[in-house]
């Protein structure tokens, strides 16, 4: 750990800390950095770091995955998708391919791509055969998809878009009766694209401290320090601890291209339901590249599958930060990276996958050589402390009342 990170840690330790303080992050990159750097073990007791809705693969609805699998199986197309997406399972009857990977094993032409440019290159090479690009992602991925289309995509490329915006999920949590967190670390690269201002509603409308962070321990620790100070001084605002990259107004070219190619729509989130104005779809002008327009039969079929989660899968509650990954009944037992049941164990940005890679064992089993969740200081639901009771201001703030369990 760098000297600067250690200094931030010392500053945090010197604060008159509340007994319990829950900081949510909404970015798989943040969760990975936190887990890999072991920040949970280094922070004083009572500071909890909660992974929230930060994994686009994890919130991609079942019906979209089902649609992609069926398209790959039944049409003469090449289906390309980001590698993470290939292993995401849907809940279908036995012997029916349940993921794009299984569709490939059953003979479908499914290929992983690492970039929208690569999807376009596959389409050029395969022309005139249709190539379907199943693109799930947040703003950081949608801007490159928009750029690829705006730059001129081949005629035989059709995008099956599953774009989601990050802030509406946080807004939904804050508007719920139990947000489950006391401060927010806002995502660094979403803010880089869209501008940090998008997150102002968190302190201004909800009185919750917030700070944009980068992906290094020092940037994250600086953000934790900032939100703690904001809380202690009862002065919530949006701080920016990634200012050189996440600049005011975001990336103007990316925002312009996003607005040109896509429009905001209501959209379903896996296991969560439909969130108003939380999705992105292609504008009518780009209909010639819309896989849903080119292959309309599969959308309705997919919609009938909405909400069919695998039995026992708690991914939705993990995504919302209602429980920690190792509190899921399947974590590390029935569900592992090798045999995933839910998307949180599949994606590099999924909290379960990240915790497993970080050595956190299931609460119900012992994995040799692994740390227990308690060692990793991640046992929130188990603690039911009255929090911040002395802080008169706290009672006015959602999530700070200390009386509501967060599950």
């Amino acid at each position: 750990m760098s000297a600067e990170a250690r200094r931030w840690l010392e500053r945090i330790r010197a604060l008159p800390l509340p007994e319990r303080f829950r900081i949510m992050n909404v970015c798989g990159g943040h969760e990975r950095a936190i887990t890999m750097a072991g920040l949970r073990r280094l922070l004083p007791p009572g500071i909890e770091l909660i992974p929230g809705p930060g994994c686009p693969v994890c919130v991609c609805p079942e019906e979209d995955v089902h649609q992609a699998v069926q398209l790959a199986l039944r049409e003469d197309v090449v289906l390309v998708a980001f590698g993470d997406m290939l292993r995401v399972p849907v809940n279908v009857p036995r012997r029916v391919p349940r993921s794009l990977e299984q569709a490939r094993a059953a003979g479908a032409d499914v290929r992983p791509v690492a970039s929208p440019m690569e999807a376009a290159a596959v389409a050029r090479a395969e022309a005139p055969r249709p190539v379907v690009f199943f693109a799930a992602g947040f703003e950081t991925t949608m801007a490159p998809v928009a750029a690829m289309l705006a730059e001129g995509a081949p005629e035989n490329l059709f995008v099956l878009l599953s774009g989601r915006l990050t802030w509406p999920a946080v807004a939904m949590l804050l508007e719920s009766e139990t947000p489950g967190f006391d401060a927010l670390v806002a995502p660094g690269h979403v803010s880089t694209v869209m501008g940090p201002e998008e997150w102002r509603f968190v302190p201004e409308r909800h009185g919750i401290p917030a700070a944009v962070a980068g992906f290094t321990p020092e940037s994250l620790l600086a953000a934790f320090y900032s939100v703690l100070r904001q809380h202690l001084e009862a002065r919530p605002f949006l701080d920016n601890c990634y200012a050189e990259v996440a600049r005011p107004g975001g990336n103007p070219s990316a925002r312009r291209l996003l607005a040109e190619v896509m429009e905001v729509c209501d959209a379903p989130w896996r296991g969560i339901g439909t969130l108003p104005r939380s999705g992105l779809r292609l504008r009518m002008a780009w209909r010639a590249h819309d896989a849903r327009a080119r292959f309309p039969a599969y959308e309705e079929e997919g919609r009938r599958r909405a909400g069919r989660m695998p039995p026992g899968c708690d991914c939705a509650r993990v995504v919302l930060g209602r429980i920690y990954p190792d509190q899921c009944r399947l974590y590390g037992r029935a569900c592992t990276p090798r045999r995933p049941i839910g998307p949180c164990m599949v994606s590099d940005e999924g909290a379960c996958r990240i915790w497993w890679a970080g050595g956190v064992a299931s609460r119900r089993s012992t994995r040799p050589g692994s740390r227990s969740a308690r060692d990793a200081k991640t046992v929130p639901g188990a603690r039911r402390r009255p929090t911040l009771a002395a802080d008169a201001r706290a009672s006015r703030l959602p999530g700070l009342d200390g009386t509501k369990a967060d599950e």
Partner: protein
Amino acid sequence: MCLGVPMQVLAVEGHTARCAARGVERDVSLFLLQHEPVGPGDWVMVHVGYAIQRMTEAEARSAWELHDEALAAGDGPTPGAADA
């Protein structure tokens, strides 16, 4: 997917930059950085093959330390391969 990779620009041709990081070279699109000049020697944050922002060398090095730790742990993303 949201895991960005800092890379250094070696050469620019149109909207494409030849970039390098940790000995791996990749073509990176500059289409999302049309509003600012990018040239050889600059560092950019790359997401799914697209540069989304310029950054300083110090930030790039700091970000790479974390990638190295993740890779050493054996489960990190494979930055050069996955994102270019």
